[in-house]
């Protein structure tokens, strides 16, 4: 179980206000909210990219230290992907995994790619030559192959077409069944309610009542 207690973060204006949330292991959690509601800020805080101004994060009952944060427990994928644009998509993924001490066989890469509808051709391409949807798939693939306990996917379905959405939904369901925790953000719950186990609705940096999908 991943728990957030009294998390606050302020930039020019408050981004997160005294937020409490818990994310059960092996479940798919939808973090829903409009633009600037604090979704990405929250995902970055969980991933350790941002330090909260106050509050505590705990994993499996243990409070996570700000020093020696267990970064490898988390994998964060952004909608547009964060890539080295000069090297191939496959090399980007391999590099990311090498930093985590993981080596990746070609067959593993291709098998993972196939789950998301990616082929060898797309993986050999430099990211700059890929469509936004394909970049997003590559970004998700990197996170999936990272073997981290918790997957954090920012706007996971934002730019995917219907078959790709279905494929990703199926893949995330399989990952959750294998024990991974999936937390993904979206502006709307429409079309995502059938495969999400839990709903967390963010509005102006605060968490509204859980469990209720919102179609705003």
């Amino acid at each position, binding site marked *: 179980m991943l728990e957030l207690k009294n998390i606050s*973060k302020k*930039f020019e204006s408050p981004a997160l206000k005294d937020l409490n949330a818990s994310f059960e292991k092996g479940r798919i959690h939808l973090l829903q909210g409009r633009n600037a509601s604090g979704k990405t*800020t929250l995902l*970055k805080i969980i*991933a*350790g*990219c*941002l*330090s909260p*101004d106050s509050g505590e994060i705990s994993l499996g009952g243990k409070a996570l230290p700000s*020093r*020696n*944060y267990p*970064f490898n427990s988390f994998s964060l994928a*952004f909608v*547009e992907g*964060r*890539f*080295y*644009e*000069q*090297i191939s998509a496959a*090399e980007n993924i391999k*590099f*990311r995994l*090498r*930093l985590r*001490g993981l080596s990746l066989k070609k067959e593993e890469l291709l098998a993972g790619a196939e789950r998301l509808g990616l082929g060898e051709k797309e993986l050999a391409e430099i990211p700059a030559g890929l469509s936004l949807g394909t970049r997003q798939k590559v970004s998700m693939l990197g996170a999936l192959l990272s073997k981290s306990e918790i997957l954090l996917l920012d706007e996971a379905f934002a730019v995917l077409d219907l078959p790709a959405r279905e494929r990703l939904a199926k893949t995330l369901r399989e990952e959750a069944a294998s024990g991974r925790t999936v937390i993904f953000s979206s502006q709307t719950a429409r079309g995502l309610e059938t495969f999400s186990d839990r709903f967390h609705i963010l509005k102006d940096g605060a968490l509204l009542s859980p469990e209720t999908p919102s179609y705003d």
Partner: protein
Amino acid sequence: MIRRIPAFLRKDFLVEKSYRFAFLLGIFSTLFSLLIFFFIDRLFGREVAPYLEELKINYFSYVFVATLLFNYTGAGLGSISEKIRTEKVQGTFEGIANNEGILPPFVVSVIIYNFALTSLETVLYLAAGFFFLGLDFSNVNLLSLALTLFLSVLSFSSIGIVSSCFIILFRKGNPLAFLLNSMEGLFGGVYFPVAVLPLWAQFVSKLLPVYYAINAAQKSFYLNASPAQIWKELAALALFSAVLFPFSLWLLKKSVDRSRLKGTLGRY
């Protein structure tokens, strides 16, 4: 932590490979500068000769080695902040800086990579100097030279890490790199021997690591000086490194922590 260094080196090599033309241009640019000094030497060499009696070389030989050393300064001083800015622009810096276990190997790999790249360029310049410009390298003391380069890169890189903190905190603008680059060009003995300068300026020179690096390199190159014979220069470089390297890593960590709190790690 160490196993991550090869991952960075491999990635940097692949990225660099995509910019082959820029690499070639860089080499030609330095070769042209050296050619300019070659002809300056023909014109004014005799004027500078009295200042180079100790080394028993001409002006061009002096500036040749100083320029090669200055390339290492550039590799250490500007490259780390340049790298961090590139990572920020690409959106990949957050992924590196948010992990205490990744940031040190990232910095070390930038240092190693630039050292290797500059050394490759240096070999090409040395070949050009030997075969086409008539330079004599028969008196080189390789051990002294290796020690000089190692300590130089360590101290230049430390200053480079300190200056990269400006990029982390203020995103653009690197006053330290600008200041040091200008000062080293004027006071460091790169384009002319420091003995040409007035006494007060010679004092300023002695505050810069590049002064000791160039002195040690000249003596290693042309006088076959052993490490014992250039111990003062090596000790000065070691002192700069011993003070600056830990300080620079501490400052880098503080800058990243501050940037993570402000949420500016990914901004540029």
